[in-house]
């Protein structure tokens, strides 16, 4: 099952969220800095930080 990242803080940068469902039905939400490019470039799907995270400039 594919879980998309969703920008929740608007504009460039900010916060992105990805809702998942655990096997027992519980919600799990990953949060990461960045939206836009950072979300689209999350190639491994882990939500882990990377150097291209556009949102980092938002939170110095």
């Amino acid at each position, binding site marked *: 099952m594919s879980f998309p990242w969703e920008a929740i803080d608007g504009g460039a940068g900010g916060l992105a969220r990805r809702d998942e469902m*655990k096997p027992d039905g519980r919600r799990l939400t990953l*949060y*990461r800095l960045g939206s836009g490019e950072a979300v689209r470039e999350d190639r491994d799907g882990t939500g*882990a930080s990377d150097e291209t995270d556009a949102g*980092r400039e938002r*939170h110095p």
Partner: protein
Amino acid sequence: MTERRYDPTTGEWVTFATHRQSRTYKPPADFCPLCPTRPGAAETEIPHPSFEVVSFDNRFPSFGGHAPPPSIGGTDLYPVEPASGRCEVVVYSDDHDTTFAELSAERIRMLVDVWVDRWQALGAQDDIGYVMPFENKGEVVGTTLSHPHGQIYGYPEVPPRPLRELRAAQAHLGRTGRCVECDVVAAEMADGRRLVDTDAGWVAWVPFWARFPYEVHIAPRRHRPSLGHLEEPDRAALARVLQTVARSYDALWGFSLPYVMAFHQRPTNDDEAWDPVSHLHVEFSPPNRSADQLKYLAGSELEGGAFVTDVAPEDAAARLREARDRVGPGLR
């Protein structure tokens, strides 16, 4: 057994969650359920090899979205209800060995956004009347998992202590026409003796009436009813003040100070009606009264509801300011 039973002698509900007796209890670091899932290792609560911040439904909730029917029948004298609500875990970092105080300003700023997001998500649920993010830090306040994390409870209605605050605020508003917390913030700014940290938007201080010797409250200078009312630069400034207070605690006696930290804010049912008397604030309640002595809740506090505090708030604030200054620059 998960249910709420009503105490007709006090007018308060007590929640029973007997399944929590079997929750994970002080596991060794290799078996921490809040760590990321390492390749080849057993899956933890977070099935990813790394993460920044994660929120998930508590495996051992006190309240649930699909609460089972009560195990016992209620009466007019003893009402019983399903324990409806939500219990969430917020994991601050994938680093098992860090603490909230040691997080970067960037990460704490991110946590503020996460708390806002969860407040909005939980507050939108019809069966939730009050959302309280909190952190229990340290074994002496009952923490069973040392991995840095907090919790968020979505209560079915306003819990007793915030309700007492709101009723006191309503009385103050009726008497003066003003928000009591706005008046407290202004009084502390004018007095100065109990201040721990200030900036253009926020104030941290030891309350005039502190129940715990090193209790600290943090509130916005302007009237903001809830986390959901915070815009920039309020959010970034809150992160800075939270970090300053947490690091000052650790500098106070040179060890990672235990505490209970909680957000008090506007109820999420009948929400706008509460706006004039709801002033968002954070309360830190550390149990220590000295480096090696704890403040216990005993006869007067537990049975009388009357706190007796061992340290003058003005002295506690002075010591915390000294600790803050030892932390040094770099927080802002």
